[in-house]
């Protein structure tokens, strides 16, 4: 009797168990609908009728909007030129896209405003110092955070003030704030708002939750009063009404008035954000801290605030983004922020052409989007890092 050897069975093992495979059969190929690009499409874009519809709709939307947008922003755009002639329709140029030549021509004004030409390097230095401060303070692996804090909260404000406003004793001529403008004003106003509002907001929030009636009453009145009026009204009062009641020589600077207004306004909102974080913590945290014998200050500093601020990061950043965009309202009191600088330039007859206004606004939106997106992206990365503790 001849034994037919089943394929894949080693000859030496024949006697033991002929029916046992000693090597794996090759795996069959998965059905073609489950691998490769087709499967990915099926699983991600065409899972059901609703998703299919949505996918088709979005593709069509992209098809209708993206090519014209690319045409407008890049292909038909005008990149060079010195006045409106570059961007108007002519017999040869029947399609005119974005007039970037206008932005190029006015870029210095958009950035520095009315700041004297010879002194503009001071603003450049300020921007560099600011970027160093931001990176040093915010980069997670940066060395010497203690020095960074001193740099960011003591050196930088003082140096910026001396630089921008001028110190004749250091050979920097004074530049009055009515000459400040453009991106620089937007950055200064939001930076002051952001830096002042968090500590002030924390103090107000703690005050509101405090057991001391006078402090509590003051904080409640301040927060509710400020939140009860629109920012425009605050700025308008500060700029129009204040000068009527104070003598000439005592009048605070116009920009300073706006800065104080915005910082106080943002603080009131920040206080409510922080209070939400304080209230979200379980009572056990407070009791635990107290049972360890910590004083009120230690309890807040070591136990409560770190946790409360951590949960409120999304809301804090949300307030910051709102504040950053609200700075455009300083135009009400005649301060030329970034957006107003663009608006004032777009009406200039030298550059009066059909697409100039749109181009100016596109430039503004790029700037504001970049700043706001950077803030929210950073906040998300911090959230992710802090959330590691919760996953343990």
């Amino acid at each position, binding site marked *: 009797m001849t034994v037919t050897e089943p394929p894949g069975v080693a000859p030496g093992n024949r006697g033991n168990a002929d029916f046992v495979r000693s090597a794996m059969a090759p795996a069959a190929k998965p059905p073609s609908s489950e691998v490769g690009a087709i499967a990915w499409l099926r699983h991600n874009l065409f899972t059901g009728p609703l998703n299919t519809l949505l996918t088709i709709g979005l593709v069509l939307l992209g098809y209708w909007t993206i090519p014209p947008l690319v045409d407008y922003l890049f292909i038909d755009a005008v990149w060079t030129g010195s006045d409106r002639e570059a961007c108007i329709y002519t017999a040869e140029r029947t399609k005119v896209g974005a007039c970037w030549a206008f932005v190029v021509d006015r870029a210095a004004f958009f950035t520095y405003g009315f*700041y004297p030409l010879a002194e503009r390097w001071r603003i450049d230095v300020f921007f560099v110092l600011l970027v160093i401060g931001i990176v040093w303070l915010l980069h997670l692996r940066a060395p010497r955070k203690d020095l960074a804090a001193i740099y960011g909260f003591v050196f930088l404000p003082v140096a910026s003030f001396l630089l921008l406003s001028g110190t004749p004793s250091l050979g920097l001529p004074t530049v009055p704030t009515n000459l400040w403008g453009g991106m620089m004003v937007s950055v200064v106003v939001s930076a002051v708002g952001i830096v002042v509002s968090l500590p002030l907001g924390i103090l107000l929030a703690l005050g509101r939750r405090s057991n001391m009636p006078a402090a509590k009453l003051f904080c409640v009145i301040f927060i509710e009063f400020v939140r009860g009026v629109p920012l425009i009204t605050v700025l308008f009062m500060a700029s129009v009404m204040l000068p009527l009641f104070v003598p000439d020589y005592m009048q605070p600077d116009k920009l300073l008035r706006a800065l104080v207004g915005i910082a106080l306004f943002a603080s009131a909102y920040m206080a409510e954000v922080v209070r939400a974080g304080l209230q979200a913590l379980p009572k056990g945290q407070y009791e635990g801290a107290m049972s360890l014998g910590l004083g009120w200050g230690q309890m807040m500093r070591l136990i409560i605030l770190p946790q409360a601020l951590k949960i409120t990061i999304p809301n804090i950043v949300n307030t910051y983004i709102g504040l950053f965009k609200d700075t455009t309202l300083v135009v009400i009191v005649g301060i030329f922020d970034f957006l107003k600088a663009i608006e004032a330039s777009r009406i200039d007859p030298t550059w*009066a052409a059909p697409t100039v206004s749109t181009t100016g606004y596109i430039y503004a939106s790029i700037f504001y989007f970049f700043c706001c997106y950077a803030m929210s992206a950073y906040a998300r990365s911090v959230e992710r890092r802090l959330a590691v503790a919760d996953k343990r």
Partner: protein
Amino acid sequence: MKKLLVTAALAAATAFAASAASAQTLNAVKQKGQLACGSNTGLAGFGQPDAQGNWTGFDVEYCRAVAAAIFNDPTKVKFVPLSAKDRFTALQSGEIDLLVRNTTWTLSRDTSLGLEFGPVSFYDGQGFMVRKSLKVASAKELSGASVCVQQGTTTELNLADFFRANKLQLKSVTFATSDETIKAYDAGRCDAFTTDASGLYAERLRLANANDHIVLPEIISKEPLGPSVRHGDNQWWDIVKWTHYALITAEELGVTKANVDEMLKSENPDVKRLLGTEGKFGEAMGLTNDWAYRVVKHMGNYGEMFERTVGQGSQLKISRGLNDLWSKGGLQYAPPIR
């Protein structure tokens, strides 16, 4: 609410003005070393920043002319950009010394705000713009035409009045903002577009094909624009008024920025009185006798200023029209300097 605030502010301001009246603005300005001038936050041809961040425009040059008369230096001006809402309070509170911000001179403003209006530096008024292809030469031929106009403005009311008075049929198409209005006109929603004439010229340049549109000759409303000062300081008011008259007189006499130095040698008694080689007219105002020479030397005469900022030398190319000299069919007229 905002209106209430403004009213309250103005009431307070008027009370305040009485005490400020005796204050000598000229001395204060000389002491500060610069003229604080209320200007527009951005109006084509009248006040707008250029690429270097210098203020330019017709109203702006007026401020510079006054500064030139006082300091012999047209750069000694601090421009305070003001919105329509806060311009009068800024003047009342002393934040600015002079307001030159395309402000229309009206009776109520003149009498109830504690202001003095200077002479009219620019006669503006509502006009019409149409497509050339419409083949219309006068606004009176616009019967049945649809007209794009901004909502809730005096412009809208003037338009209705003009069409009613001339027994024309009006189809007005209204929009909330001036940007929307001009966009709609450009897109062909209406046959004509109406706003103040100075604005028409500026908006025309932003149309897709500026050369396909013309501004009709009719002006259907009175918008006299001019500088204003605080009530009560007559010396200061005189300086502002006579700076304007000096600019007009210089144009009448043919004194220009280029030839002003030669004109110092002129034998014409009018020129001599203007440029201060004869008489002590400047000192009577608290200035130097060569005040008008300084103005013309730095800024040129009225015609030069006009052409440079809004006229043929600019992109706007507004014709002189009512702003021509009285001797050439316009309204600009200066009392004699003697």
